[in-house]
């Protein structure tokens, strides 16, 4: 794909993605036990590894979000966000396919948050993927401080 996104579109995509991922990380960082439960509910990680995931993933979201907004390592942060979103889509799809009735754990990790997984959560993730591709295939680097050029 050629690099054809530029200007305010890229900046807006960076701000939206960064904001969403920072927001999504905060509740998980403050309550890792509840997030570990939410991860465990997906049944994709064996041997109680959901706790390790619950320790690292929220920080990954926070750091990637901050990098996008501040303009540091934007390429790396965008790749991280693309990988995370692909993993989220796979996790949600397999849970839906197996008929597991669970909450998303995407933004709020409270057990009664009411944010159940479904087609809407998959579409939401595809929306974030689209924004991430806009950032990744940007034509010019505006308001980016490291690295200035690849």
């Amino acid at each position, binding site marked *: 794909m050629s690099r054809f996104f530029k200007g305010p579109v890229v900046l807006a995509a960076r701000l939206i993605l960064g904001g969403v991922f920072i927001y999504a990380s905060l509740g998980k960082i403050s309550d890792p036990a509840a997030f570990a439960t939410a991860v465990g509910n997906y049944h994709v990680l064996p041997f109680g590894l959901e706790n390790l995931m619950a320790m690292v*993933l929220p920080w990954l979201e926070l750091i990637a979000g901050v990098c996008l907004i501040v303009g540091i390592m934007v390429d790396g942060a965008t790749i991280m966000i693309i990988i995370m979103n692909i993993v989220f889509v796979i996790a949600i799809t397999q849970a839906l396919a197996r008929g*597991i009735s669970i909450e998303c754990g995407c933004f709020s990790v409270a*057990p009664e948050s009411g944010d159940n997984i479904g087609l809407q959560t998959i579409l939401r993730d595809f929306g974030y993927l689209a924004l991430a591709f806009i950032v990744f295939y940007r034509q010019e680097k505006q308001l980016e401080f490291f690295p200035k050029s690849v």
Partner: protein
Amino acid sequence: MNIRSPIGQTVFLLFLSCIIGFSSNLFSSNSIPWIAPELTVVEEIDTTTDEAVLVAISLEQAKSFFDDGILFVDARDEGYYEAGHIQGAMRNSFLMELIFNIEERQGKDVPLVVYCGDPGCGDSEQLAYDLKDSGFTKLYVFKGGWVEWSGAAYPSQVD
């Protein structure tokens, strides 16, 4: 590793997240164990003991508890509850409301069974630990949950 390349940056960010995540868990007041502990299903259940109980139970044990009229609490979201749940099970409202409802019905030292969707789901265990923290002393987690119960065609209801 070239930190100026996109892949180098990705590896660096992943590494940084691991370092911060693991170390913040070490020093946090909300820290969790490295590996999630699992409740194991007990063979023998002594419902007459005065000691606090928090154990997992099998489908047969759950049915036996059901036949004895022991309270079941559905830990799933209300939408799933309304689509089908164990007959007579209490819905999972807000925790404080749930605690109030259980206390009003039977107090904190009477056995109750918590369940969620399927054998591996964590909501029932999480709710059981929340109830334990709130002073409930006789907690049984039916790990098979709604999938095993409905699969066995045991009494259920929709509302």
